[in-house]
């Protein structure tokens, strides 16, 4: 049992992979596969937030920025692919058929450039932003508000540049995805499988980071940043790595969101969208491995089932759940299992070994 314990999360990821990649396509209708794909995207953002916030203590309230970078990179590529070589996107023709394609669109015709940009853009933006903030020791609420403001700024920028970016209507009506016809069910399943596989990869990355020395250092930095400095490390660099990894995950999620949902608008990346991304993580348990992903999927599911049938009620239910979780389970629903385990432990060992009283604490710490 003790030998097995370090590998339990890996087994969990394996089970999750089978459920997503084998069971789901076999039993779900196209409608739900598409929805599940969308939840996977939010889950990928959430896994990154779990790393940056749960383990690194950085309340990233503006992951919409990086989600948006990836989403718009992909959406511009798919828009150009749909328009065909040498042609303008439809929404641009509506404004001015004779205007040339804006220069910054041009490189996104290339498949390779698009794929590289999805990963590299968030690395560049998050590195510059993170370096500036962490070296200046901006943290806590200031950090949270700043990232949130950036998400708002990006959303406003896109809204206000309707001719170049499609504005509030966003980019939509994509027909092709790197040569595959998006209307085809088989291709839709393929796109879903890619998103699900990427989610699994992100979970593996966070699992490995969590068990690595870097993971221990990240938690140490979260809990006592100054102390880490006095051990000879620069906490800014440690936080930067986690922040950049989270940004890349958000970007990848945004990129997959576009072919799955078929539309991207500033509303999907602004303040409320960014907060919803955090909400799932808080609900599931920010410091755990599966909590953020499952929490995000649960919120996604709630939104598409309850949210569409009873939109006004849904937002109140979400608010209520959020309050209850913060009050009674500050470490999210995933801390329930730890608590249950430690209760069982205590009742089983209380009579026999008083020394074992420390064991439940150990349990919680190891998570």
């Amino acid at each position: 049992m003790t030998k097995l314990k370090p590998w339990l999360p890996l087994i969990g990821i394996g089970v999750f992979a089978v459920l997503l990649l084998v069971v789901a396509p076999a039993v779900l209708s196209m409608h739900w596969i598409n929805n599940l794909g969308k939840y996977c995207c939010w889950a990928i953002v959430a896994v990154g937030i779990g790393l940056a916030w749960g383990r690194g203590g950085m309340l990233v309230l503006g992951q919409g920025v990086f989600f948006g970078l990836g989403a718009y990179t992909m959406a511009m590529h798919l828009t150009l692919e749909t328009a065909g070589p040498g042609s303008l996107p439809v929404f641009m023709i509506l404004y001015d058929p004779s205007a040339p394609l804006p220069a910054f669109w041009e490189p996104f015709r290339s498949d390779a450039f698009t794929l590289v940009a999805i990963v590299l853009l968030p690395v560049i933006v998050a590195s510059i932003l993170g370096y500036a903030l962490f070296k200046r020791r901006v943290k806590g609420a200031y950090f949270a508000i700043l990232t949130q403001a950036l998400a708002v700024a990006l959303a406003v920028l896109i809204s206000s540049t309707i001719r170049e970016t499609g504005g509030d209507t966003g980019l939509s009506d994509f027909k092709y995805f790197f040569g595959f016809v998006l209307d085809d069910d088989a291709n839709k399943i393929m796109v879903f499988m890619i998103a699900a596989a990427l989610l699994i990869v992100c979970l593996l990355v966070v699992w490995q980071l969590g068990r690595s020395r870097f993971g221990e250092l990240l938690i140490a930095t979260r809990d006592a940043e100054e102390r880490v400095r006095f051990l000879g490390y620069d906490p800014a660099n440690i936080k930067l790595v986690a922040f950049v990894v989270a940004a890349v995950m958000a970007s990848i999620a945004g990129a997959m969101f576009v072919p799955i949902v078929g539309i991207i608008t500033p509303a999907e990346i602004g303040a409320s969208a960014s907060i919803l991304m955090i909400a799932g993580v808080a609900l599931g348990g920010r410091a755990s491995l599966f909590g953020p992903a499952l929490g995000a999927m649960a919120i996604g599911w709630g939104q598409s089932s309850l949210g569409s049938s009873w939109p006004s009620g849904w937002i109140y239910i979400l608010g209520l759940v959020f309050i209850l979780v913060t009050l009674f389970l500050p470490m999210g629903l995933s801390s329930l299992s730890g608590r249950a385990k430690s209760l069982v432990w205590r009742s089983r060992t209380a009579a026999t070994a008083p020394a074992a009283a420390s064991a439940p604490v150990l349990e919680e710490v190891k998570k």
Partner: protein
Amino acid sequence: MTTTGSLVVTDLRVEFDGFVAVGGVSFDAHPGEVRFLIGPNGAGKTTCIDAITGLSKGSGSVKLGDQELLGTSVNKIVRLGVGRTFQTASVFEQLSVLQNLDIAAGLHRSSLSLLRARRGIEPAIESALEETGLSTERETPAGILSHGQKQWLEIGMMLVQEPRALLLDEPVAGMSQDERTATGELLQRIAQRRIVLVVEHDMDFMRRYASRVTVLHQGKVLSEGAVAQVQADPKVQEVYLGTAGAATTAAMLAVPDGATATTDSITQGEGA
């Protein structure tokens, strides 16, 4: 000069918004001695250590061997070989004893190796566990260690870094008599090869383990020398030993003076 070099503080000054906490302090510490820095509450002892380790900005000079420390960033000073502990033990409570030591030992590891999980226990960590008597507690979360054990863990975290100088801020505050003895002996062992500078309130502990003592008062050096010499100094007796009897010393131990510093600065803030 020995090969490791000494810690030489010359005319160190630290000001907080015009308030002179340390006003021109000079002293040195050599490898092989347990050097003590004592003085009443608010004398500027912690501030001296803060300045040496880069936490507070100071002027003057602090040299470790030929290397000037003032103006260097906190983490670089650690990498130059200066470790410190804090008045209130600060270990990573969520991590185990072993993880705490492992993080401390990692300062010279390559960034890439950080991405791997820890396998086995490095010899330096094993010997630090033994040296500090924490071998049986290696899997214990640092947060549930006793107060004394936390201080030892902090000392262990310094040891695995192989520092040239160890600065300890009130390491035995709140410890039992046995724990004090163990700590004193540990410090004497460590000091055989390294510079050890101890800030203490506890006079008895100072008497038993100090080789040389510097007494600070209101940010200035009041007296310096061997224990007997300092104790015989009438100036010292007046400001510290004479007025601060056993009862006051005990009271000082109970209230870490970090708390006083905070309230001080708060009241100062309100006054302004």
